[in-house]
């Protein structure tokens, strides 16, 4: 790094209080405080966010560099998913209706998921 070069920070924004921080890009800045200011100016001029994270790029370890650390693809994982179970016709045989977790969440919070 030359004398005048700033380190790179990866930038994450949080849309609302209950959202996860999401990666939006990166910026260069002299220190974390400056990085937060730069991130605000670079990425959040229009969208509002309730929080911004800046993380020094060299603190990030990426699995894409080492595919052995990535989850297996192509394997049948349907047995891990709600869609892997077709219970509706079975409930119907018992004259009952299949239930989804979304309707439970809606009943409990009064909000549509």
């Amino acid at each position, binding site marked *: 790094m030359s004398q005048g070069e700033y380190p790179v920070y990866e930038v994450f924004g949080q849309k609302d*209080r209950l959202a*996860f921080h999401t990666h939006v890009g990166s910026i260069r800045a002299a220190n974390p405080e400056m990085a937060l200011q730069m991130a605000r100016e670079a990425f959040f001029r229009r969208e509002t966010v309730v929080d911004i994270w800046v993380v020094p790029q060299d603190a990030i370890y990426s699995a894409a560099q080492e595919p052995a650390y990535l989850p297996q693809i192509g394997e049948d994982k349907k047995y*891990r998913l*709600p869609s892997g*179970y077709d219970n509706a016709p079975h409930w119907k045989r018992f004259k*009952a209706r299949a*239930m989804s977790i979304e309707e439970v969440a809606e*009943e*409990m*919070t009064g909000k549509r998921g």
Partner: protein
Amino acid sequence: MDDPIRTREFLDRLEQGDKIEATDWMPSEYRDLLIKQIHMHGISEIMGAYPEKEWVPKAPTIRRKLALNAKVQDEIGHGQMLLRLAEDLSRPYGRGREALMDDVIAGRVKFHNVFHMSAPTWADAGVIGFLVDGGAIITQAMLLDSSYAPYARMLKRIVAEESFHMQHGESVVLALAEGTDAQRNMLQEAINRWWEPMMFFFGPREMGRGSQRMMEYKIRTLTNEDLRQKFINRYVPRVRALGMSIPDPKLKQDPATGLWEYTDPDWDWFNKMVRDNSGPMSQARIALRRYAHEEQRWVREAVNHATQALAELPGA
């Protein structure tokens, strides 16, 4: 004592529906209630994996084995995610993962009554997914609205995975209900075993002071009795649709209020079991946890030493 002005401001934030982060100032009572709740929740996820793990090698088909194993992995994962939250909150007390896990072995943290019980048949494995996960989902769906943002956020992820647990449990139960007389009997007997523990699961009719304070702090939004009523209301018709009966002669819905009358579980027996870890499987499962936590401690320490040694190598 907490600063009364900051406490006032904090309560105003809650009143406005604002969510609290781990790094925000909070009254110590709020912090302590959260630690107690999330610690117990996380540990219950982990202890909840044990009754089902027992059935992984004995499940009837490879697909059922895969699915049950996937569910056990999810529950351990839920425990890990929740313990991280409890650890962040426990930072002022200097307590991390090791300490929170030591509490299980020393009997300083409780876990849900249902995970002290035995699961003697394959139908129990199914009914756990059907009724126990069903009950847990009702509680967790309520907590999606919690005032503590990290908890609400993590529950979004957890509830998404629970959706699979619900469908998987129902799939096992439906297969038994559609099966032979022996399978249907086995299912009925499992329902008979799990119904009373599920009535206890949501807690006493009159909530304790801690639970009441959790409602005032909007950590939770419904009472124990609200949750139990929602559970009964959803599951009684489903169990009956299968041609199964509920082992409670008092069970009756008031047509005017929609509320259910039910037989109280043996509160004293279950309370004592949860407090003293004196249930049929409590000690056996805690012994497994002790083995994983204490006897494997040297492995965790060795990995730390190795990492440190590598970092200190010349040229590292």
